[in-house]
């Protein structure tokens, strides 16, 4: 199962690759990283239809915000699930994300147990 993480912090890649080391090694999941909304859309647009099943995106990013990216993905690739990961867990961001069709909302610092459960569930349903 292919998952795309979108965050402008580059170290997110190392962190998530290490956190999901076992799942990656066993071939359960495959991770890709984009460091902007634009890059994320490019990666998703490389294949038609894209093999990605799930996108996790930060909200506060330079250029396209995570919420804008959410809208774009929902329009262009309605089958891809999107969840938001944000340091700003205020109700305004939460409501906007959920109303735009986000599957879930994770606050930073990320609760990895919750994230792993979420992904495991998704893998099971594949």
């Amino acid at each position: 199962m292919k998952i795309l993480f979108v965050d402008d912090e580059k170290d997110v890649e190392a962190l998530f690759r290490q956190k999901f080391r076992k799942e990656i090694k066993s071939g359960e999941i495959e991770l890709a990283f984009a460091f902007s909304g634009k890059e994320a859309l490019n990666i998703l647009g490389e294949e038609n239809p894209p093999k990605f099943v799930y996108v996790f995106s930060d909200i506060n990013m330079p250029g396209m915000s995570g919420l804008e990216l959410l809208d774009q993905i929902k329009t262009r690739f309605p089958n891809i699930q999107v969840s938001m990961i944000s340091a700003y867990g205020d109700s305004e961001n939460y409501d906007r994300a959920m109303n735009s069709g986000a599957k879930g909302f994770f606050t930073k610092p990320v609760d990895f147990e919750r994230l792993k459960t979420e992904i495991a569930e998704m893998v099971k349903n594949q």
Partner: protein
Amino acid sequence: MDAIKEKLLSDTVQRVLDMIVQVNFPLDSIDAFVVSDVMGFGTTVDEKILGLEGLKKLIADQQVQSKGLDLKFKTSLIHSRIFARENAAFYSYDFTITIKIGTEETFLPLRFSIVFEYMDDQWKLVHWHGSQAVNSEGDTWHRNELVRKNEALQKLVGEKTADLAQKNAQLEKAIQTLKETQDQLIQQEKLASLGQLTAGIAHEIKNPLNFVNNFSELSTDFIDEIEVELEKTAESPEKENIKELLHDIKSNLGKIRHHGSRADSIVKSMLMHSRGGAGTVEPTDLNALIREYANLAFHGMRANKNPINVDIRLDLDETIGLVSLNAEDFSRVVLNLIKNAFDAMRDKISVVGSDYKAKLEIRTMNLPNKVLVEVEDNGPGVPEEIRDKLLMPFFTTKKGTEGTGLGLSITHDIIKSHLGSLEIESSVGEFTRFRIELPIN
């Protein structure tokens, strides 16, 4: 006096009276019975006439002004006299004019004296004097009347002055209010931007801090895995050495994680504080809040530079029960007041020395319809002259960068937002007591 001369005199007198009374009296006939250098006084200041032309002008003006007015004249002779050798005569009259405007009648009492001289077989008017009779008995020189007028004027001036003074005071008060409002707005603006700045900084710190915490946690997990793998290999001195090193690294990672958590909680409280009004008003155990924050403030102070020994006494009235307040905000009030007390008492220790025993008392008390919170220290006290400046934003007695001058101002704002009041009682060298009264609805 012979009859002809007497007749001439009475005719001349009558013509003078007619001249004054009749609206259509022919002006060119005046020359016949008035001398050219006639002199007279009228009733008004400007009626001081010298010469025939002046008299003619006066009569002409009078005729113009009388037009359309319903005027009645009544003359009665008071006194007359023919002078010796019968060449001069003098007459005095009471002269009442009744002016009717609509149904209103106004009486104008005048006195009128005229002097005639007999020359070239004719009687001619040489002088007259008209004056208005005013009501001022026994007031020969109008002194009393002047005094009365003066008094009336002074009273009027007094009233106007008082009026002006009052208006002035009102204006000054309005300006004062405006200035205060302006100051408050500026402070609020400053506080708002300060809050935003703090929130921004806290957020920016939070992200790298998350990495520190996450990577240290991950590395700890990896070392656990390495240790499991290592157990599968053959024993050797090198293996023992590796195990020891791994143990140390794990312990170090634990320390990184621990201090990262500490920093994280500081950042969290910074965010909480900068988010003004984020909390909600809820029934709160005020005594518990005071206990918790007094403890926090004390340990915070002990952990910082220049800790002092303080005897803290809590005298909490358990009957106050739950009080409706914004716990997040009100905890700042408690923290600020206690922190200030510590700072003040530290100053006193450095001046007075170790004989002085710092003491802080915090009381709560159930009053009718309100709850009283008192924070009292036996520090240096607050001099009278700066007491009312204490609540002003950016006013501080602390040296250099030790105080922002915001603590008490924010404290006061929070208490006001709870519709409560903050009073400061102090005696220099003895104590300072902050009294907070919170209404219970």
